[in-house]
């Protein structure tokens, strides 16, 4: 039952990508900006979780909660300082600013604590179950259940609450939403807060699962999460989840087939194929460009 084992591993990895991708997709859906710094918020979340668990003696869930809260604050801070002024600027200027913010977070972290990796402490027992011949560890189950719980909460917030309604309205048409009396700035801040909190949670989960974190760890998962968001159709929340899962499974399969050095390339090949043949993603609808 080798394939089942790989599927479990792939879904665990995929749920981490999905959590990061949700932040990308929400931010992109609302202000059409690839928030390059999102992967670095993920890294900060991992470090907050690390300090909370190993230095301050928190348990897994309090650490997760703390990381989410701090990352939400950082996300809003980034938006207010760096992106707010650029709402009406060209897309290139906004994207370059995002790259700048990303580099700033990475190298400020390195400046303060050095570039050496840190080993994550064990917080979840290493027990594993045998299920149809596959070994399913306690960690995988924990990761999956936390991710699914967060996604369900997110769906609830977006579809059942007032602020969720405002977010959907702003992403549909900013000007019309403003005319209808929606506070666009606050809505965008809330979007950043929720997206960054999910990235922070993903960071803690990533640390627990892979047991190694470092200040540059956010770059590759960040770009891959963007690939996942594009794969599912950018701006679509279930699309980001599905895209993340697909990407995780594909990567695990590529590694399992013995091409582990090619694993990172697989994500980009998928990205390019999707962009060429179905730019709106799996769940997306085609939109025509207005002149």
């Amino acid at each position, binding site marked *: 039952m080798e394939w089942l084992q790989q599927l479990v591993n792939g879904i665990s990895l995929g749920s981490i990508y999905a959590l990061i991708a949700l932040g990308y997709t929400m931010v992109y859906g609302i202000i059409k900006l690839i928030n390059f710094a999102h992967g670095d918020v993920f890294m900060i979340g991992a470090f907050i979780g690390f300090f909370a668990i190993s230095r301050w003696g928190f348990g897994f869930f309090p650490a997760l909660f703390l990381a989410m809260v701090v990352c939400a604050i950082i996300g809003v801070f980034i938006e207010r300082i760096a992106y707010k002024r650029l709402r009406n600027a060209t897309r290139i200027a906004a994207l370059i600013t995002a790259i700048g913010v990303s580099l700033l977070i990475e190298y400020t972290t390195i400046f303060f604590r050095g*570039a050496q990796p840190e080993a994550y402490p064990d917080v979840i027992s290493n027990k594993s179950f045998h299920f149809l011949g596959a070994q399913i560890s306690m960690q995988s189950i924990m990761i999956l259940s936390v991710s699914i719980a967060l996604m369900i909460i997110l769906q609830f917030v977006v579809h059942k609450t007032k602020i969720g309604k405002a977010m959907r309205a702003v992403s549909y048409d900013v000007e019309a939403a403003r005319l209808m009396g929606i506070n666009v700035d606050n809505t965008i801040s809330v979007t950043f807060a929720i997206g960054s909190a999910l990235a922070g949670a993903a960071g803690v989960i990533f640390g627990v699962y892979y047991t190694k974190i470092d200040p540059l760890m956010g770059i590759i998962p960040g770009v891959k999460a963007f690939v996942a968001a594009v794969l599912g159709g950018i701006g679509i929340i279930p699309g980001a989840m599905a895209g993340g899962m697909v990407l995780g499974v594909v990567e695990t399969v590529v590694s399992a087939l013995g091409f582990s050095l090619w694993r990172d390339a697989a994500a980009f090949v998928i990205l390019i194929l999707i962009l060429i043949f179905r730019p709106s993603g799996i769940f997306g609808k085609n939109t025509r460009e207005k002149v």
Partner: protein
Amino acid sequence: MKKSKVFWIYVAIALVFYAVVQFLISSEQLDMYYSNLFITIAINIILAVSLHLVIGITGQFSIGHAGFLAVGAYVSAIFTTNLGWPFPVGLLIGAIVAALAGLIVGIPTLRLKGDYLAIATLGFAEIIRIIFLNIDYVGGAAGMQVNYMTTWTYAFFAVLITIIVISNFTNSRHGRACIAVREDEIAADAMGINTTYYKVLAFAIGSFFAGLAGGLFSHNFFIIQPSQFGFLKSFDILIYVVLGGLGSLSGSIIAAIFLTVISLYLQDFPETRMIIYSLVLIIVMLYRPSGLMGTKEITDIFKFGNKSKGGNVNE
């Protein structure tokens, strides 16, 4: 007539500059440290100018320039070091292969716009890097031994050719078509400009010169590794173009010189260097989104000859 005269004046100034530096190097007034600095500046100018053609002139937001640098670096190194061909031929082959890679990457991806194009080019650069990482012939992750061959003469003439070709291209009919694509792609298309053709053409020319820079780059070190051509290298090149001004040739050259010198002095503190880089990038983008020079050239400030005429509108 007048334009060509100005052109020859610039070329003459450049050649005098070359001769002075060459004299100082051969008379050993400038040691290895400084001659290496000049070569690094030259390589970075080529990279900045070639990316300037893609981003600044044609408006195609490519952030995977390090991929083409890698192609040029590896291919020319294979020809000179492993096959023993002469260095200029190796440089040329590296550049041509990089241009072909630019065509292969450009034809499908340039249908994309803005952010998607940026991510796709980033992905392609990463794929190129991973390919080199997995080819044992070029040493994989451990890197590849390269003969030290780059001299100031090669570097200088490569820069001169790059600047002449790209500035002449920009001022030609094709260059104006590229600027039209940058300003408004849909309108340019409606005016009968073959936008895809010009985007791919600019991309291929940009890749060609990135490959040329790659050849000089690899032969300036004794070893090249795939990790030298990652995201950060692409961002470095992007920063030259952005800081100098999106659309200003002289701006990107000045930024390349300035930032190369600064990073040399900050070499011992790489974190500080990147923090300063990123802060400068953010602040410039927030307060001057078109870069320090905008689309102005330095020659707009210092004009030869026609000061009394007041502008060149009717030329």
